[in-house]
């Protein structure tokens, strides 16, 4: 399923930087993610997590540096990237005048897929997320949690090789959050790479095989959650939150 590059990296960024006016949102970020990894993008507000995700999807152009996803350049081949990458924004935006089902059909048609097949494949996830009864209602009437669920379905609909998720469980009820977590683990086991930005450090600790900690646009730490404790010179009984606070304060 995953088109591996010659060097084996699904995502590669080198010296990635983005400046808005005088503010440097992302500052010289270098990353390499492999197949099947679940990467937690952590950091305080304004650390540059969302900007990084948008840079990787080609929605923003880097001020400096370069990034490639699945061997495709994030700037010049953004359209091709979007056919193979799923993205769920922090604040999902939909057409209010479409129903949930019509939204999924539209997205699938734009991607060149077969709506009937995609909806059939998504049926268990839709059922698990408890969205089936509302799928034929207009999105205008959806709550934030329902929109988040729909955004995740949109991101997963084409079984992408890479999933970029911005605060995926924000606004979801605990049972749905657990189901999403399980689904992400299944996808990763099947070979997909998942990059998720989150403030929920407990979830990152349980779910992620790797965490990337950012602060003021810079990379502070990159490694396994356990290694973060060591980097922060904390014992194994310390939580990821303790490590996070110490590393950011440093």
């Amino acid at each position, binding site marked *: 399923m995953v088109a591996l590059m010659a060097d084996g990296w699904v995502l590669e960024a080198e010296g990635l930087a983005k400046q808005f006016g005088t503010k440097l949102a992302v500052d010289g970020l270098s990353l390499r993610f492999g197949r099947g990894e679940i990467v937690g993008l952590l950091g305080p507000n304004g650390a540059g997590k969302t900007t990084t995700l*948008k840079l990787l999807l080609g929605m923003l152009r880097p001020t400096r540096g370069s990034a490639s996803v699945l061997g495709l350049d994030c700037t010049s081949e953004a359209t091709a990237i979007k056919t193979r990458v799923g993205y769920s*924004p922090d604040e999902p*935006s939909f*057409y*209010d005048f479409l129903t949930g089902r019509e939204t999924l059909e539209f*997205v699938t048609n734009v991607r060149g897929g077969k709506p009937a097949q995609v909806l059939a494949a998504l049926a268990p996830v839709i059922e698990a997320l408890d969205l089936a009864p509302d799928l034929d209602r207009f999105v205008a009437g959806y709550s934030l949690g329902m929109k988040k669920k729909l955004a995740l379905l949109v991101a997963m609909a084409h079984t992408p090789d890479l999933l970029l998720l911005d605060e995926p469980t924000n606004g979801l009820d605990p049972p749905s959050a657990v189901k999403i977590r399980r689904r992400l683990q299944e996808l990763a086991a099947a070979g997909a790479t998942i990059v998720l930005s989150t403030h929920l450090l407990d979830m990152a600790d349980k779910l992620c095989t790797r965490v990337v900690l950012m602060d003021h646009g810079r990379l502070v730490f990159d490694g396994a959650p356990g290694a973060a404790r060591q980097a922060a010179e904390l014992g194994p009984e310390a939580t990821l939150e303790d490590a996070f606070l110490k590393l950011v304060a440093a």
Partner: protein
Amino acid sequence: MHTWQQLRAVAVLVLRSLHRVGPRVRGGRKAEPTRGVSAVLMRLLFAGLIYNFGFTSGMRIPLQAEPSWSATWAALGAGCCLMTVPLSLELPSPRVPTSALKSHLLEALPLSQLSKLLLVLAQGLLLLPLPLALALTLHSKMTPTAPLLGAVALALVLFSSFVLAGACLAKALKLVLSAYRASRLSWLASLPMIAGMLLLQVAASTQVLGRPVMGDSLGRALAGQQPWPVVAVLGALTLGLGAAFVWLERGQELSEPVPPDPTASALGEGADMRAIERVITRREPGGSFQVPFATLFSTAFVGAMVWTQRTSELGLSALWSLAAVITLQMVATLGMQRATRAATRDMLARPLLGALPIAPRDTLESKAAMLRRSLFTVSAPLCLVFGATVAHPSWLGGLAWRAGAALLAVGIYASAATYVAFLTTGLGSSTPRGGVFGSLESFLVVVPFAGVFFAPGPGSALLSLGTLAAVTYEARRAALRSIDWLDDPEREHSTEVWKALVVFGGFQGAQLLTQQLASLFRGVVSPTVQMLSAYLVAGLALWITTQRGQESSAPRHRAALAPLGIAAGALSAGFAWVYVRLAAPLAEGAGRMEVSGTGEAVLLALVAVGVAPIVEERFFRGWLQPALESSLAEHRRTYLAPLLTGLAFAAAHPAYSFAPVLVLGIINGFLMLRFRSLSACVVAHVVQNAFALYLAR
């Protein structure tokens, strides 16, 4: 294959947006789009109004000394109007509502350049009737024997080239300035609209513009003389602009966060809502420049008009008309745009505002006050027309009442625009529509507003002012009610009277639209038949709408009341007879319908005596009056309902028949109040109309 599938998906999306994003005339408690016909009707109405604008301009152009020059300027004017849509949609304005078709969802999808081009053209689709009307009208007036296909093709390429030109301009601005800086200039998008409308108006009214620099081949093609070479050139231009759009799009960022301004606390300038509103407005895109710029723009135009009249004999009426057109367009465009933006801002900030101790009244009034100040500034150059009295002192009297009425209307309009924006776009909207332009509600306000500017005499101006004030008053009530609805969705959204008014706005719009469509058959059917058919179609639409609204509390049918209706009709007709004898000579602009042949006479009789009484009574006495009664019941002033309904009934008729229609309206209102039946009202209306036909025979 994939491209085709994507284009089909985008086309379906466009069609669904046209069908579903629209007003919800009845009900409106759930924030859900409509699945009914109201959205389609609203769009047809808007398209009809746009068509009407192009049509009226096209009708006047052949009367000019150099029609091909005027036609060229008019085509450029229409083109400028078309550029507005892509400009306003492409410039990212996070604080201004966007099109129903614009969504962040698209940013993460692999949309091809062709699909993006289709979306850009689809966003401007509702303005397509403008070049179409211009081309078709000029074709039928100047070269009716030439093939129609040339005119249609010319309109299509004119549309696509100018829409794409606007999109390219916006993309280039974003590329040069950055998306964020370009968003600060989003107010510039209103300029092509104003300039375009002015060009169209001036081109169709006077020869002041002279020969176009680019030559008049476009105008000649529009007039039906060898259109195909121009179609080919504009087609090539469209392709070139399409390619330019694709090239510019390639280097664009799709989204860019807007960094906050280093702002001081608005509260620091005084903790009242007006001060806060002032600070916020100033910091919005174009907030500091828009009003001075618009004022300078209209000053230059009105000043030039006044200067021209010193050497050429324009006449008071022509001078006022031109000055009024400029002022009206500046005020209407700026007013609706600013009101929409303010309402949207509140919608976005609802989580913050909802928790603050701000009275709904203050929220609305502070916006209205701010807008009033801006619009007075913009319309101030209207006073320059008094400069013309240096050359013609006798004009002073004629100008004084016009300017006074116009400025008063501007003040009322500022409030009306605020309330309408609130009801259609902002927090008070059950289905936010991304803008108030083209909504039935804005039509309700703009028609009497324009009526004040173009009133033939002080009486008509007063009538239009009264109508504007009444509509504004009800809009305010509806807006305040909507705020209660926000806090408690179980309460009624808007007011019944406002909903009734919106339906009536639709009736009048449908009549206008049908009349314009019927005018395409000029030569086949007479103007009288066109007018009567338009009334029949619009009347049918109104009847169906009121029928649906009266399922639960339909007035009873009581045949026994027929004699009472005859007596009431006789009383009203008696007043009409006295009025015609004594006061009619004083009435302004009394018109008379020309009827030729028995067929037309029968049709007129059928409409006047058969259809109009049923349709109008159903709406005014059957729907509007009960709505007013329920509103007035709280204050135990139900008896005022017949008077107010009568006034609305009379205001909806031509000014010269105001008094007799008012009397009939009041009599029928009291009959309805007393007997809860439309039977007597319909009979009285039949008698009155039959008598009017007899008088006009």
